[in-house]
C-alpha cells in the first residue's frame, strides 16, 4: 500500500547539513500495524511526515498504491491526506477555541459535508471514544487523555485507510496511553493500516511489525504476526 523507496532527507543547517533519513526503503502493506522506534533525533518523525505527504524527501520517492505522492502538487497531497490519511500527534493539536464536537467536525468541513452530516458523524465518533458527554467542552476544559481521544475521533472522522501516529502516548500517563494504544489496535483490527512512532518499548511490542531507526537508517526490522488481509475504508 505505502512504499518508501531509497528515501534520503537532509536538513540544511547554518554551518552543516544534517542527515534526517539515509536511503530508507520500507514497505507498509495494507492492514499492517508498524511501529517505528529509536532514540530521539533518529528520524522517526521525519519518516512519518514523509510517509504522510507532509515533507518532501531530498531523494527517493513515496508510493501510495503505486502513485508517487511527491509528484502531486501540495494542494493535491493535502486533498489526498483529507481522504485517505489520518494524523495523530503527540501534542494532540486540537484547535483551542473550538469545542470537542467542532474539532472533530474540521475534517468533515474540509470534505464539504453538510452541517447536519458533520454533527451526526462527529457525535458518533465522540461517543465511540467515550466522550459523548463532553461535546461542548473546549480542549482546555478536558484532561490530556480526553484531548487525545478527541484527536483520535478527529483523525477517524474521514474514515482514513492509513493512520499515522506520532508518539501518541508521549504526553499521557501509562494508563491513558494504554487506552489510546488499545484504540489504535481496534482501528487496525478494522482493517486500517497503522504506522506508530514511539520510544516506549511497552507500546512498541503491541505492533505487528517493528522497525528500529538509528541516525536516519533502518538498523533492525522485526515481524511478529502475519499482516491481516481484512479490507476496510472504501475510498
Amino acid at each position: 500500500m505505502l512504499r518508501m523507496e531509497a528515501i534520503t532527507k537532509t536538513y540544511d543547517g547554518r554551518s552543516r547539513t544534517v542527515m534526517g533519513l539515509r536511503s530508507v526503503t520500507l514497505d507498509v502493506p495494507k492492514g499492517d500495524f508498524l511501529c517505528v522506534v529509536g532514540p530521539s533525533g533518529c528520524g522517526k518523525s521525519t519518516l512519518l511526515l514523509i510517509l504522510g505527504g507532509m515533507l518532501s524527501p531530498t531523494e527517493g520517492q513515496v508510493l501510495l498504491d503505486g502513485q508517487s505522492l511527491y509528484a502531486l502538487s501540495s494542494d493535491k497531497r493535502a486533498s489526498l491526506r483529507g481522504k485517505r490519511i489520518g494524523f495523530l500527534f503527540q501534542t494532540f493539536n486540537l484547535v483551542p477555541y473550538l469545542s470537542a464536537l467542532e474539532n472533530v467536525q474540521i475534517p468533515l468541513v474540509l470534505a464539504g459535508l453538510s452541517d447536519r452530516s458533520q454533527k451526526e458523524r462527529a457525535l458518533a465518533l465522540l461517543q465511540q471514544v467515550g466522550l459523548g458527554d463532553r461535546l461542548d467542552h473546549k480542549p482546555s476544559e478536558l484532561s490530556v487523555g480526553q484531548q487525545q481521544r478527541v484527536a483520535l475521533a478527529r483523525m477517524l472522522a474521514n474514515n482514513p485507510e492509513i493512520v499515522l501516529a506520532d508518539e501518541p502516548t508521549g504526553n499521557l500517563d501509562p494508563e491513558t496511553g494504554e487506552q489510546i494504544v488499545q484504540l489504535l489496535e481496534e482501528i487496525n483490527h478494522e482493517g486500517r493500516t497503522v504506522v506508530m512512532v514511539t520510544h516506549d518499548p511497552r507500546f512498541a511490542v503491541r505492533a505487528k511489525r517493528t522497525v528500529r531507526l538509528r541516525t536516519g537508517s533502518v538498523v533492525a526490522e522485526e515481524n511478529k504476526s502475519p499482516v491481516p488481509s481484512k479490507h476496510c475504508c472504501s475510498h
Partner: protein
Amino acid sequence: MHLRTIVWRELFERKNQLATSFLAILVGIAAIVSIKNVTFYSEKAVAKELDALGANILILPKSASLQDYYSADLQDEEFPEEYVTRLSSSDIQGLDNLSPKLSVPAEIEGRRFTLTGILPKSEFQAKAAWQGAGIFSRPQGCGVVATPTGNVPPAQETLVRRRVIDTLGSTDALVGADVAAVLSLKEGQTIKLLGKPFNIIALLPQTGTIDDSRIFVHLHTLQELTGKGSVLNAIEIVGCCNQISKGLVQKINRLLPDAKVVTVTQVVDTQIKTNRMMSRLSLIFVAIIVLVGGASIANYMYANVFERRREIGTLMALGAGTSFILKMFLLKALLLGLAGGLGGYALGTVLAVTLGPRLAGIPVLPMWSLAVWGTGLSLAIALVASYFPARRAAHLDPSAVLQEI
C-alpha cells in the same frame, strides 16, 4: 460548521490584539469620514457665500478693457443682444443669472451721469449687493444647501423676484444713491432722460460703487431712445463658483468666440484655493489612515499567523489546501474591515454632526455616501494589508511548523 464559524470563533480568541487593530481602523475611518463630512458642508457654505457676492463673470466686447469691474460696461464697443439668447438656450451648467446691460452717458441739470438699460429680472438678481434693502433676492441655485435651520423657500424667492420685474415698466426708473442725493430726487417724481419722462419707482441704497451714479431704466426703452438697436455693452453673469473652477469661463468663451469673457479672479481663486486645501487635507488623512491602519492590520495579521502556526499545520495535515487557509485569513480581514468601516462611519458622522457646527460654524448633516466610501476604504485597507500575511499562512510548510513544536 462552516469556514465562517472557525473565523468567527477565532476572532474573539485574542481579544486584545483584535481590539487594538479594530481601534486603529475605526479611529482612522472616523477621522476621515468626519473631515470629509465637514469639508463637504464647509465647501458648500463657502460657495454659497461667494455666490452671494453677486455677478462674477462679465461678457464684454472683444476689444474692451477691464480696469474697473463696476464700470466695465461704460465703453463704446457693443455686441448683439442675441448673445443672451445663445447663453440661455445653451446647455452650459452653472449660469445662475444673466444681466444684459447697455450704458450711455446722460447729462441732467448740467451734470453727467450714466444711464443704464437693464432687463430687470436678471439685473436685480445679479445685484446681490442690494439685498440688504430687502427688495431683491439673492441668486438661487449654486451654493445653496438644504440646512436644518432652513432658508427662504424657493417659491417665495421667485415671488419676490416677479414683483420686482413687474414694477419696472418701460417708463420706470431706478435711481442710484449719489444721483438721488445730488439731484434731490424722491420716489414718485418724474425725471426727463434723453427727452423722455420717467417715473422714479425706487431710490437704491448706497453700494459704494459706480452704480450709485447710475440711473437704471428698461433695456429696450434705452435701446429705442439711443437708436442703437438690439445691442449691449456687457452681460453680467452670476456663475456658480464651483462651475467656474471647473471651466465655466472657457465654455462661455467657446460659445461666444467674438466676445471677451472675464471673471473676478479673486473670488474664483478663493473658491479654488479653499477646495484645493480641503481636498489636500483629506488626501493627507487618507494617506495617514492607509499607512497607520494598514500597518496595524498587517502587523496584527502577521502576529496572528505566527501564533497560529501549529493550528495551520494541523489543518493542512487534516487536508486543508492553500485556498482554505487563504480564505480563513481574508474572511477575518473582511469582517475586521467591515466592522471598522461601518463603526468608523458611525463615529465619524456623530463627530462631524456634533463638532462641525462648533468648529466650523456650519450645520453638518450625515452623508450616506460616506458610509459606502468609508466601508470601501476600510475593506480595501484590511484586505490588502492582510493579503501577504494570509499568503504566508497558506504557504507555510506544515512539517516545519509541526516539527518545531
